[in-house]
C-alpha cells in the first residue's frame, strides 16, 4: 500500500459521520457606500487612491516616471507606452530593475481594499511583486462589497494564477512596528475610473436611490 492509499484508508476508517455542507453564505450588500468604503479601507492599509473620469492622470503619472528615467511597465493596452508584452519572458534579474508596474485589476472589494489581478492581466507572474511601486487601475463598475461577491464575479482557476492584492507589501515582525514596504512593492496606487459624467450611469444611480424601486 502506498502512502496515498494508506492515508485514504485510515481517513475512511476514522472520519466522523456525514455532516451537511451549509448553504452558500450570503450577506446583504449595501452598494451605496461601496466606493467610500473601498477608498477608506485601502487608505487605512497604506494604499493611495484617486478617482478619475478619464485617463489623463494615469498618463501624466506614466510620463513623469519615464521622464525621471525609471523603468516602467504599462499593462494597459488602451494607454500610451504599453509594453507589457516585452516583459512576459524576461528573466528575474531583468525584472528586478523595473520600478513601476501599471496593471488592470478585475474586481475590487470594498470591505478590505483587495483587488483581484488574474494572470492574464499581469503578463509575467513576478511583475506585481518584484516592482518598487505598483499601480492598479479598476473600474467602478467592478467594485463589489464583500469577498463573497468577489468570488461570484471572478473565476479563480481561469488561468494558472491570480491574486488579491490589498495595499503595498508590509510587515510588523520587528516589535510589532508597522513598516510599509517589506520585500515586495513599497507603494500601491489605485486609480478608480468612475463613470460619473455618463448620463446612463446617473440614471442608474437615481434609480437605485428611489425607495422601493425594483
Amino acid at each position, binding site marked *: 500500500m502506498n502512502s496515498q492509499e494508506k492515508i485514504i484508508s485510515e481517513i475512511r476508517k476514522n472520519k466522523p459521520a456525514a455532516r451537511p455542507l451549509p448553504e452558500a453564505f450570503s450577506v446583504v450588500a449595501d452598494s451605496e457606500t461601496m466606493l467610500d468604503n473601498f477608498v477608506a*479601507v485601502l487608505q487605512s492599509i497604506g494604499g493611495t487612491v484617486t478617482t478619475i473620469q478619464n485617463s489623463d492622470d494615469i498618463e501624466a503619472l506614466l510620463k513623469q516616471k519615464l521622464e525621471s528615467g525609471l523603468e516602467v511597465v504599462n499593462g494597459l493596452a488602451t494607454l500610451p507606452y504599453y509594453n507589457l508584452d516585452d516583459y512576459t519572458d524576461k528573466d528575474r534579474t531583468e525584472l528586478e530593475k523595473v520600478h513601476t508596474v501599471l496593471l488592470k485589476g478585475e474586481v475590487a472589494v470594498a470591505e478590505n481594499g483587495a483587488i483581484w489581478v488574474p494572470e492574464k492581466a499581469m503578463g509575467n507572474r513576478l511583475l506585481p511583486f518584484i516592482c518598487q511601486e505598483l499601480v492598479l487601475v479598476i473600474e467602478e463598475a467592478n467594485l463589489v462589497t464583500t469577498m463573497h461577491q468577489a468570488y461570484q464575479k471572478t473565476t479563480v482557476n481561469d488561468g494558472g*494564477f491570480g491574486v488579491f492584492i490589498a495595499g503595498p507589501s508590509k510587515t510588523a515582525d520587528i516589535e510589532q512596528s508597522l513598516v510599509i514596504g517589506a520585500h515586495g512593492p513599497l507603494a500601491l496606487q489605485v486609480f478608480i475610473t468612475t463613470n460619473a459624467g455618463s448620463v446612463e450611469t446617473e440614471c442608474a444611480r437615481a434609480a437605485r436611490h428611489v425607495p422601493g424601486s425594483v
Partner: protein
Amino acid sequence: MNTVIKDHSNAAAEFLQDKERARWHDETLWFVRAKRDKAAHNLDEWEALRNAASQIKEHTLSMLDDYLLEFEAKAKANGVHVHWADTAEEHNQIVYDILQKHKAKNIVKSKSMLTEECGMNHYLIDTGINVVDTDLGEYIVQLRQEIPSHIVLPAIHLKKEDVSNTFHQHIGTEKGNKDEVYLTRSARGVLRQKFLTADAAITGVNFAIAETGGFVVCTNEGNADLGVHAAKVHIACMGFEKIIPKAEHLGVFLRLLARSATGQPITTYSSHFHQPAKGQEMHIVVVNNGRTKQLGREEFRASLKCIRCAACFNTCPVYRRSGGHSYHNAVAGPIGSILAPNFDMKKNADLPFASTLCGSCSNVCPVKINIHEQLWLWRQKLMQDGYVSFAKKSSMKLMAGVLGNPSLYRVGGKLAREAMRLMPWSVNNKLNPWYKQRDLPAPPKQSFREWYIQNKKT
C-alpha cells in the same frame, strides 16, 4: 538537537524572570487581540461567518477522503505533481528528492508551520542544502538559530535591540541602529538577492480547493510570491486538513483569517495557484503525520478544523505570560497544546495543563473549536494513561478525596484557616510556587457553612 526539553511551567518561570520583557510580551499580544475584536465587531455577520466556517470544516472532515482525491485529480489535470507523505520523514524525503532531481542547492521558503512540524529545515540543511526563511520574523529567528515562538508573529519574543544585534552580526547593519524601517529595508535588500538566485521555492498552504485543484497562500510581505514566481520549482507543503470543498468557501475563510489573526481586513496578498507558470514545475506534498490518528479521536478531531490564525494564542493569559518557546512544540499556544499530545503523549503531557481553562480561546476561534474543553479532556486522558507526573497525580487524587468527602473537607478547611492565621509562613514560603507574584487574602474566621448555620438559627 539533543537539548533537554524543559516542561512548560519551568520554561515559563525562566521566561518570567525578565519582568519588563514579559510584561511587554503580555501587553503587545493583548493589543493584537484588541485589534482582532475591533475587526470582528465591524462585521454584523461575524458570528454567522464563524458558524459557516465551522460547519464547512465539519462537513469537510466527514468527507475528507472524497475531497482529497478530488483535489489530487484536479491538481494533476492542472499539470501539478501531487505527492502523499504519511510521516514527517517521508515528507522531508519527498522534498529532498525533488530538490535533488533539480540539483537545487539554494532554497527560499515562506512561512509553513507544517515544515516546522516536520523539522524540514534541519533535514535539508544537514544534507548541504541552503534553506532561507524569507518571512521577516522567520528570517530573524533563523539567523538566531531559534524556532518561531508564534505561528503568525514568529519573532514576537524579541525586541528591537535583539533584531538590531542579530542583523549587525549576520548582515552587517550599523551597530546599535534599532530603527524598524532601516532594519526591515536592510533585510529586504538581502532577501531580494536570495529570491533572484534561488533554485527552488517552498511554501505552505492556507487553503486547498477540492473543486479546482488549486491552493491559496496568504502573506503580507510578498515573500511567498517573490520566491515562487522567481524560481523554476515550487513545492507547496500542506497538512491534509487544509482542504476545503469549493472556491466560494474562500469568501468565508479569507474574511475570518486575517481579522482573527492581526485585525487586518485581509492579508496584503492572497495568492491563488492552479497551474505552474511556463517553464516552471509545481509540486504539492499532502501530509498526514498523525492527522488520521487525531481524526479517529472523537473528542479531539475538531482540532483539525484549525486555520492557524493564532487568535487563541493572543488571547490566552498563559501564552501571553509564558512565551511560545515554553511550549516545546512547532505550534504553541492553546491549539498547539491540543495538537501536541496526539504526536507524543509522553513528551507533551505538560501542555494541556498550560491553561487556566478560562475558555477565551474557544470564544475567539474563527472555526469554533472547543479548545478549552479539549484541554480539559486531554488532562483526563493523560492522567488515565499514566503520562502525568506522580506529584501532580497524587495531589489531584488527594484533592479529589477531600472534595468528595464533606466532613473531611470541613475539617481540612478549618485546619487551613487556623494554620494561615497562626502560622502564615507555613503556606506563604518559597516552597509554595502559588505565592510567586501573588498573595492570598486574609483567611476568614469561619467558613460559609458555619456562617450559614449560625445565622439561620438566630
